[in-house]
Each structure stands twice: as C-alpha cells, then as structure tokens.
C-alpha cells in the first residue's frame, strides 16, 4: 500500500538497526511520547530488534489512559441520564470508572454511541431534536481541531442540544513534568508526530535547550520509529540536544495554521489533572467563555466526584517512564484487559494493554521460546 508498505520493509529495517548498532557506544534511555508509537513498537516487536543498550520507555501520550477517573465518572453520570445520547471515541467505552464502563451503561439502557468524527454528533443532534447530545471531547492536540469544530459548528448553526464534556491535555507540559522529576531517567524523546502535525514543533525547542535533551518528532510506522531512534542516538552520542523532524513527509515546524486558529478561537489553556500523574499546570484546554453554553459540565451541573485508584497500580510511574509494565506485581495476573486496575491497561495505546495484547505478560522462559521459534 502506498505510503505504508514503504515504511514496513524488513530489509530497510535491518539496515537501520545495523546503523543504530554502529552509532551507539553507551546505554541510552529514550521515551516515545505517543501511545500510537507504543502500540506500533510492541505490535511490530521493534524493541526486540534494538541493541541491548537502547531502552525504550513508554510515555504519557495515551489520551484515554490519562483522562482522570473523576472525569470518567462524570461522563458516566451524564451517559446514564435518559435524556442524553452520549457519544465517544471507541476506545473510551471499555474504560472503567468507579462503577462500570460505558458498555455496561449501554447494556443498562443508556444511549451510548461510538463516533469516528466529533462532527457526526451534529447529525445525531439534528435527528434527535428532543434529546441532549453529549460528546466526550478527550485527547491531545491531535483531536483538538475536530473537537473544536464541533463546538464551533454547533454555535454557528444555533444547535441547543449539543455539548462537549472536555478533558483535553497538552504534550509539552507533560514532557516538562517528566524532565523536572527527580526520578527522571529519560535522555531523549521520540516526539509525537500527529500532535506536531497540528501544532508544529516550535514549542519543543525551548524544552530541548533547557533540559539539554534531543527531541526527534517521529511518525508511527516501524521504519519511522527506527529512524527516529537512530536520530536521537546520533544526537546523544554527539552531545547535541536539538529538535529534529523525522516525520517531514507529514509536518513542518509551524504545523497546521487553520487548525491552530480554530483551536485558539474555541479553547483556552487551563490546568488539568492527569490520571496517575496528578495536576499539571497549564497542561490542558477548556472551552472559552464564548462557548461556555456548550460545556456539558456546566449544562448538566455534575458535581465533583471523589475517586480512589487501586493502591497496587503503578500507572502513574509507567506514564512517566519511571517503571515498565513488568515492574508491576499485578501485571497480567490481578490486572488484565478484562479487569484493568489502572489507566495504562484500559486502552490499546496504554503501555500495559499493549504489552498484554502482544504477549508480554508471558514469563521470560516463554519469551525465549518465542524468540527461538520466531527466528
């Protein structure tokens, strides 16, 4: 397939791995920021191709994982209302709140629908004028333009039965929080390709300078990731700390200006709580005052809900690259995709769920066997 097969070629992958081997002289810890990258790495077995001294740790870029439990409980309280059609991206449906998930709310009679685009909510709203359509507007900068477009069009067409439950987060403040932590191990980053396609990568330049870390904005296909790793290691070995763009076929330094304009008109930066991490100042979006009437929290005046995370769960440390899924005693035993205890086990992009789905819950003995059979 054009633009896909070219980036999955086994021979080129082997050459890139060989170049990484030649360049790398010291051990390095590199974080891929995006959940999509984590998924691709584990799905394609890329981390097993890398030399031992190159460790990939998985970042906080899984939007479903970092949506705080309080917000999920609010979503569930709204979705249970008989007058509401609750619309969401698909992978949010299985995320457990304090009391079940959206699938179970659906089975109890709640009207919960999966949409592929937030704009689909406008069609649903027109077809159901006597009901309230609520969209769970989560995600990073990537989904912000489409989510902003929903609010924008709802206001422009005077729709009174559409609102957004907003839980938007931003990547640069999360990177800053990781690098500022005394426990930080990360020495270089694969930057988030899709996020930068929207907002560009200017914002990452001060981070690279201030913390002296290389950041290579990277795509999602196997060869993208291998090339991104190579570019980060070249910088680390040469003592450089710059922002470079591996994903130039998709984005440039400035990003998508019309999308940025729309985001700026609808959203403003606000403090946000991240599941498993805590509050990060200036790390999210909320609707501007002009769009307040489209804020579902305001419209349904849902009370703040107190929640408790299971104490065994180390999702917060996994999201910051301090620990890996294997370091958790509950991984694959008490905590599985059937019964997730925490954020990183719930979405396919979460590090724990990706590890589990692709067999990383197996013992070392199993893995040795897999390696032997695979080669």
């Amino acid at each position, binding site marked *: 397939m054009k633009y896909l097969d070219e980036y999955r070629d086994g021979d080129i992958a082997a050459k890139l791995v060989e170049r990484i081997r030649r360049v790398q002289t010291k051990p390095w810890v590199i974080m891929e920021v995006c959940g999509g990258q984590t998924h691709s790495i584990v799905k394609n077995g890329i981390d097993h191709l890398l030399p031992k001294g190159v460790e990939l740790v998985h970042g906080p870029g899984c939007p479903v994982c970092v949506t705080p439990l309080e917000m999920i*409980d609010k979503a569930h*309280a709204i979705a249970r209302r008989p007058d509401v059609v609750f619309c969401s991206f*698909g992978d949010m449906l299985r995320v457990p709140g304090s009391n079940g998930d959206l699938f179970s709310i659906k*089975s109890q009679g709640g009207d919960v629908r999966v949409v592929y685009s937030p704009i689909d909510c406008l069609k649903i709203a027109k077809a159901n004028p006597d009901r309230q359509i609520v969209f769970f507007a989560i995600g990073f900068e990537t989904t912000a333009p489409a989510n902003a477009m929903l609010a924008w069009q709802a206001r422009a067409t005077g729709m009174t039965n559409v609102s957004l439950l907003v839980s938007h987060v931003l990547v640069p403040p999360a990177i800053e929080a990781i690098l500022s932590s005394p426990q930080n191990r990360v020495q270089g980053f694969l930057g988030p390709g899709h996020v930068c396609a929207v907002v560009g990568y200017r914002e990452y330049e001060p981070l690279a300078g201030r913390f002296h870390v290389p950041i290579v904005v990277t795509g999602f296909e*196997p060869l993208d990731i291998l090339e991104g790793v190579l570019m980060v290691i070249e910088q680390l070995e040469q003592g450089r700390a710059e922002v470079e763009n591996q994903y130039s076929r998709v984005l440039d330094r400035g990003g998508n200006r019309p999308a940025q304009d729309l985001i700026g008109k609808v959203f403003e930066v606000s403090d946000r709580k991240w599941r498993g991490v805590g509050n990060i100042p200036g790390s999210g979006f909320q609707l501007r005052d002009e769009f307040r009437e489209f804020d579902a929290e305001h419209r349904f005046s849902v009370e703040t*809900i107190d929640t408790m995370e299971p104490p065994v769960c180390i999702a917060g440390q996994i999201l910051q690259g301090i620990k890996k899924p294997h370091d958790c005693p509950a991984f694959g035993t008490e905590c599985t995709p059937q019964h997730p205890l925490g954020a990183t086990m719930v979405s396919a992009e979460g590090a724990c769920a990706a590890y589990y789905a692709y067999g990383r819950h197996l013992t070392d003995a199993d893995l040795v066997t*897999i390696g032997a*059979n695979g080669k």
Partner: protein
Amino acid sequence: MSTKVDESEQQELAQPFGSCPLPIFDHPQIVLGHGSGGKLSAELIEKVFVSRFRNPTLEKMDDQAVLDVGGVRLAFTTDSFVVTPIFFPGGDIGALAVNGTVNDLAVGGAKPLYLAAAFILEEGLPAADLARVVDSMAIAAQNAGVQLVTGDTKVVNRGKGDKVFITTTGIGHMNRATELSADRARPGDKILLSGFIGDHGITILSQREGLEFEGAPESDCAALHGLVAAILDEAEAAGDLRSVRVMRDPTRGGVATVLNEIAQRSRAGMILRESEIPVRETVRGACELLGLDPLYVANEGKLVAVVAPQIADRVLSAMQQHTLGTDGRIIGEVVEQPSGMVLMRTFVGGTRVVDVLFGEQLPRIC
C-alpha cells in the same frame, strides 16, 4: 442524578442469578462484547450454556455436532443472523443465513443436505424487502445443493427487532472417512488460508458508518462446500484423507480467533508470517484508518485449513484451482511451543503474540 442511587442500583444488578450452584457469571447484564467471538463470548458459552447442558458432543465445541444416528454419521449445526444493514455489497442477510450454516457443515467434512429457517420479522418491514431476502436464500440454497425443508415465522412489535433476524439449522451427511477436529493440529502441519481477509467485516462496517473508501470492498459471502470438497478430493486421491486435520471458516472474531481456538484445543503453538497473509488494499486502508486489525475482522467465505506437511503443497494447489481459493496461501506452521498460542513474524522481522480479543475490537482514538 446522585451517585448514591447509582451505587445501590449497581449492587442490586450485580447479584448473581438466584442461588444457582453453577459458576457465577460476573456480568450483571449482557454486553455487546458477549457476541464478539472473543474471550467474553467464550466465557458466556462456558459459564452459562456448556455448564448446564454438558455432554461429550457439546464439549467438543466444533462448529458442528457430529452424531451417529442408526449407523449413519450426520453433522448438525445452527446459526443466527442479525446483520445490519440487511442488504450490502456482495450479499444480504438471506445469502449469509444459508451460506453460514452450509459452511459450518462443510468445514466439518459433511455434505450439506437440508436446512430449516426461522424468521423473526419486525412489524413494518417492507414485504418487498422480505421477498428479496427470501429470493436470495433460494438462490444460495440452490447453489449450495441444499433444500430448505422446514421453518417458522414470528412477527414482533416495531422497535422490538431490527427488520429481520434469521436462524438457520442444517443437517449434512458425513460421507467421507474424515477426522476433522480443532484438537488435531500437530507440530509441522501447515496452515492454509483461502484468500483475502476482512472483506465482509469492513464492508458491513463501512455501510453501517456511511464510510466511503476508494474501490469499496464487497462481502466475500459464499458457500464453501465446493472448496472443501476439492480439498478433500485431493487428500483422498493422495490416499491421505486424515492429513487434513482441521478446517474452519473464520467468521466473527476473524482468522486470529479461529487459529487461537485450534492452537488451544490442539495444545500446540502456531507461527504465522505477516507478509503471507493476504489483505486487500481497501481493507488495509480502512483498518489503518479505523485502528482495527484485519486478523480480527469477520469473513463469510474464507477457509482456514491445517494440513499435514506431506500433502500441504497438493492441497494448496487444489485450493488455488477452485474459484474461491485462487488467492490461497500457506500462512504459517504449527509448532510445539509455546503451547496454545499463536505468534506472528511481523513485516519488519519482529515477533509478536496474536492473542484472542477480550470483546469487540474498538476503534482507537488516534
């Protein structure tokens, strides 16, 4: 709405059924994932159904029951069809209902003979639509060489059904000395797949969601009895009928789910080669866009066969000479370890586990 009320409601709903001594089914309600073909479906079948009806035939858990009736071996199966929309490119619910049951008989090695069909019709269904569905069933039955010999019709209130639900039940004659079963895969066996995967599932999804793709896919809905006969004829000609170990049609849950079932039942492992698994460009594009994996997407006219190595090449060429198997390939091998698991060698040379999904495959956010 206060959360207190929710909690008490939830607790009430979470009570297990009565004082039932059978395994507790830990879902207070049925969720859609119970129909996905994944782990949730398996749990429902085991804890609710098999535990209550337990008998040796049922416990084999093949797609059809093989019964000895007065010295004659018969295959017996049933399947319900609830697809939306009822008409789609490449087929409709009627063709699906006939072919699905024919295929469940055929993959067990039976010659499909007779079908029963039960219809649940929703009040308001256009009679012309029903006639179109039934015409399509008649054509499919004729093509598959089966007769529809009995049936039933019920009508439910508007909103209590979805246009038309069809259940078909079939009987076939086990007219060859086959020994096909999901527990017969052995290390060294080859895994054959008859063609492109995911066509049906992606067709239905794109119709349902109003997604438009360039070169839109069509459902692969087809009766597999001819392809199965071609494979068994070839094995018979080689004097090695027992070397065809197991055949399955990878419908709901896709190729990945079927192979996992075989690996688990046979207590063997499997190694697939991603580069050998045929996926059409449109289907791959749609899957990339929607964050789905074609290995888990439904097919309605594909065959997976596990065949002993000595006749694998002969069987493959017999498959490729049949119109439904022209794109057939050997996609992998059965191995000893890790037992009960399916592994795949990826395009870039990595290895990963191809697990059974928990419930429905969910589109990823980005």
